[in-house]
């Protein structure tokens, strides 16, 4: 079954800005799905339409088979949303916020209190449950929004940049938590600007740019399409010039750092053999940029060129 099915979705705001231009998108039940795009691409508008905060201009959207036009209440009861901006009452306590949210979804108060304890504990907010929400740190506020979105145990969880401004330790603990939720059967749609996050968590991906989906594929397939990768190599001894290894383009960045661009056909073993022959002792290596980032940038650039030509 499809968790989300969107057909020909368009949105033109009153000021004439066309945020969505006929978006078609399907997300399978149980998926961990990345929806990526540059700022202003239409991600938040699309999510806004799915959660009824934004009115669509045309098109159709179904959530677990419930049409937003005809079965809005049923469709909305399937969705949990973690928005980009903090949007809870800062003068209420975390406990009140999550229990009330459950109530808006028809969860009886006794059940809501049990769930509040479970999710606030899982997201390390239990100690803060009775204080004012405005006293929470940025990371805690983000986690509170995740706890709030889970209170009615939605079948589809939409996270709009959930880890923006969160330190790496908390971000990784949030990743672990989201993986567990997904493993228990919740479909997750994630938008993020941290492409490492999308590559680590998501199995399928769509890239949206200028209000249209420009790519939709399995994450693994998309990464395989990368024709070249740039690696950063650190040498033990200082390098006066870049070594010459036949068949490889090497650039000296500083005394101890080289950059090597490899195509899909070239092997790292051959590069290392060449470097060893030149007397270069490599002590560490990393990708210059995240692989998904490379694919993403190329797709967005291509989409931009097409738009300019059009």
């Amino acid at each position, binding site marked *: 079954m499809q968790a989300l099915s969107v057909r020909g979705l368009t949105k033109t*705001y009153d000021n004439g800005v066309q945020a969505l231009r006929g978006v078609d998108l399907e997300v399978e039940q149980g998926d961990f799905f990345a929806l990526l795009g540059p700022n202003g691409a239409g991600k938040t508008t699309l999510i*806004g339409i799915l*959660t*009824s*905060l*934004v*009115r669509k201009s045309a098109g159709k959207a179904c959530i677990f088979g419930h049409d937003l036009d005809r079965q*809005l*209440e*049923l469709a*909305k*009861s399937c*969705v949990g*949303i973690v*928005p980009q*901006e*903090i*949007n*809870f*009452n*800062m003068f209420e306590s975390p406990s*009140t916020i999550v229990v*009330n*949210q459950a*109530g*808006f*979804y*028809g*969860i*009886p*108060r006794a059940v809501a209190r049990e769930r509040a304890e479970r999710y606030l504990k899982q997201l390390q907010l239990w100690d803060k449950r009775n204080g004012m929400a405005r006293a929470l740190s940025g990371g805690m506020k983000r986690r509170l929004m995740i706890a*709030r979105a889970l209170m009615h145990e939605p079948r589809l969880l939409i996270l709009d940049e959930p880890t923006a401004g969160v330190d790496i330790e908390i971000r990784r603990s949030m990743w672990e938590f989201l993986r567990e939720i997904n493993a228990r059967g919740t479909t997750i749609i994630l938008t993020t600007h941290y492409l490492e996050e999308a590559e680590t968590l998501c199995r399928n991906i769509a890239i949206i740019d200028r209000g249209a989906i420009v790519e939709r594929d399995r994450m693994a397939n998309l990464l395989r399409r990368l024709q070249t990768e740039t690696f950063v190599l650190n040498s033990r001894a200082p390098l006066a010039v870049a070594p010459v290894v036949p068949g490889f383009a090497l650039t000296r960045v500083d005394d101890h750092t080289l950059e090597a661009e490899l195509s899909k056909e070239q092997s790292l073993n051959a590069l290392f053999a060449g470097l060893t022959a030149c007397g270069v002792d490599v002590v560490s290596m990393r990708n210059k940029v995240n692989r998904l980032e490379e694919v993403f940038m190329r797709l967005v650039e291509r989409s931009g060129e097409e738009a300019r030509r059009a």
Partner: protein
Amino acid sequence: MPETPSPASVAADARDRALALGLRRARRIGYQTIVIREWGRIVRIWGQTLMPPAITATLYFIIFGNLIGRRVGAMGGFDYVQYIAPGLIMMSVITNSYGNVVSSFFGAKFGRHLEEMLVSPLPNWIILCGYVSGGLARGLAVGAVVTLVSLVFAHLTVHHLGAILAAVVLTSVTFALGGFINAVFAKNFDQVNFVPTFILTPLTYFGGIFYSIAMLPPWAQHLSHANPILYMVNAFRFGFIGFSDVNVVLAFGIMIALVAALYLFALLLLNRGTGIRE
């Protein structure tokens, strides 16, 4: 012979019934949640919600009821303090019902936590009823507080309990709806304060709280009849002392019509997403 329904259609009917039952239950719990949240807010900030009307009413009773009232003498055949007591109670009900909804709904819109409700499956009419019930709860609570204060200064009698209750509930709901509509349109705090300051307060003071309109020249009497608060105050006063400047049945008719019109207009705004959905 009647056709036997297929197992698939029986299952579909059962599923639809379960969904409908689930939605009804969810709506009831959702409505209760909004009311509990609104009441929690009223109690949490009692220094801003319940206390000021008691102090204001006390000052009105001391100054207008006792000090000035003694010189005014009888009004409509009743002691002046006894005459103005229902109007003062009604004045606090009006301002607090309106103020509660306008500040709570606009605060939720401004702070964006209104989105918690908008993304939930709650239908718009439940959201509206929840906020209006919050306004009603504050209006009745403040009305009860001011009634207690008035008992210290005036001898309150009950002429028609039904009229008292119906008038206070209809008035409170009317102004709660008014506050909701104001909050929907308001884009900043100035617009929240505009209606209470420049429209509500003058209408209230010219609504026959402190005087009988029989004292006014004929043109002013005619003009007063265009003020809906006149009907609310007089219907309420009728419930206490059995005296009214207007036809009580007409007064209730106007109140019911106002509630119906404002409810439909507020619901239309919500359904259109005015001021709250893009």
